[in-house]
């Protein structure tokens, strides 16, 4: 077995971190630190790895009033995330996994797409609350060429370490459309469940869905998307 370079070690360590099951990230960090010859080896890459994990997993965090999502789709900068529903941009410390502040939105949301985004947000939040008891949803908007793109994210997680299980459901839906035009819906759903009493059982599922619904004014579009 050849000698592994420091670079390779850091890569292996980060891969372990990114593969952590929901709710067990910090335990994996402790394990990996204990295994490295020098646990400060991952300190340089830690901010990047922690951020990657938090955004891909769509962490639900509490900002003092409600739960909000940390996700790539709402990323304003490395440490700032959009919460369109409350009109705030909140700062997030990836290492401590805490919200550290917030400021009002100024220009992060596209004015033209906004009526659609906000109508869809209302309808979507109702849907999410109905079906995802522990979930948090967020609806973001952007423009691709002349198409409006609204991205809807749901992240629902349940942690029960005393009974040795954790799970997380992540849905990301993208609606692409022109105002009053047909809406093309694409979604990816991911489920991770980990049960580890006297063993290690994990379920990892990834499914894709697509649909096409009629557009119209913002309210109609929203209604149709949620039904779809």
């Amino acid at each position, binding site marked *: 077995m050849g000698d*592994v370079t420091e670079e390779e*070690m850091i890569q292996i360590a980060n891969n372990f971190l990114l593969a952590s099951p929901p709710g067990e990230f910090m335990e994996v960090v402790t*394990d990996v630190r204990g295994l490295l010859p020098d646990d400060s080896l991952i300190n340089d890459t830690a901010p990047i790895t922690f951020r990657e994990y938090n955004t891909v997993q769509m962490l639900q965090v509490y900002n003092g009033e409600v739960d909000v999502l940390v996700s790539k789709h709402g990323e304003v900068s490395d440490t700032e995330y959009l919460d369109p529903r409350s009109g705030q941009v909140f700062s997030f410390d990836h290492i401590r996994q805490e919200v550290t502040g917030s400021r009002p939105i100024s220009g992060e949301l596209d004015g033209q797409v906004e009526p659609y985004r906000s109508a869809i947000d209302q309808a979507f939040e109702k849907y999410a609350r109905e*079906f995802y*008891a522990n979930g948090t949803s967020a609806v973001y908007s952007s423009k691709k060429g002349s198409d409006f793109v609204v991205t809807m994210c749901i992240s629902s997680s349940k942690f029960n370490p005393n009974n040795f299980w954790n799970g997380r459901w992540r849905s990301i839906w993208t609606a692409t459309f022109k105002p009053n035009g047909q809406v093309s819906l694409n979604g990816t759903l991911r489920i991770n469940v980990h049960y580890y009493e006297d063993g290690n059982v*994990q379920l990892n599922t990834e499914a894709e869905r697509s649909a096409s619904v009629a557009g119209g004014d913002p309210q109609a579009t929203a209604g149709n998307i949620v039904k779809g």
Partner: protein
Amino acid sequence: MVDQLDCALDLMRRMPPNDIEDNLANLIDLVPDLCEDLLSAVDQPLKIATDKEAHRDYLLCDYNRDGDSYRSPWTNKYDPPLGDGAVPSAKLRKLEVEANEVFDIYRDLYYEGGVSSVYTWDLDDDFAAVVLIKKTQDSTKKGQPMKGTWDSIHVVEVQNSGNSAHYKLTSTVMLGIETETKQAGRVALGGSLTRQTEQTSEVSEANPHISNIGRMIEEMENTLRQSLETIYFGKTKDIANDLRNAAGVSLQRQQQALARDIGSSLRSR
């Protein structure tokens, strides 16, 4: 000083089971000093090798390994050949040969396929054995997109005392299932369960070690298979349902309220 082996084992308990081999290799790259300990402590899916002399397959594990060579239970020889590889004593080898034949039949009856191997080794006045069974299924060609693997690893320690013996059994079953359908997308369900049990039994002509051990293992496998079903399918379904209700929270609340009403009107009779 943090115990590195504890960290490593804890880490392996959290990584996706379907990637065990890659993760273990990476782990050993990270801490080469722990290599021997890790190989013997972490259960990996078993590998199959063919004994060209006996024209039969056998399973590879840490207990029939010496250096980089593995011992075949059919011919008792190492591949690649070793001049002084560890082998069981003559008396124990006789028991090993019989155990392999018995478990071959057991495997055929319960698994209708697969490969089994039994390895024994001497421990002072006593001995230990490991019974391995592996079965894989790949139905992708038949149009049923399902790949599955079952690995059983049963390690039993035997302590002789007069006319009876004390058996300590540690069993691990690793089950992995992967399917890909349009309905459900890519689903990977995998994992392992470990259980232990102990028993003291009479040893005689009518109840030789093999039948005592065989009975223990049979009972253990039945229990494990049942737990697997409950945990893999039952529990994970429950957890997934907790994450997203199939019927919706309002419907659920209605049902709960109805249940409460019925409950209280029954009690007030």
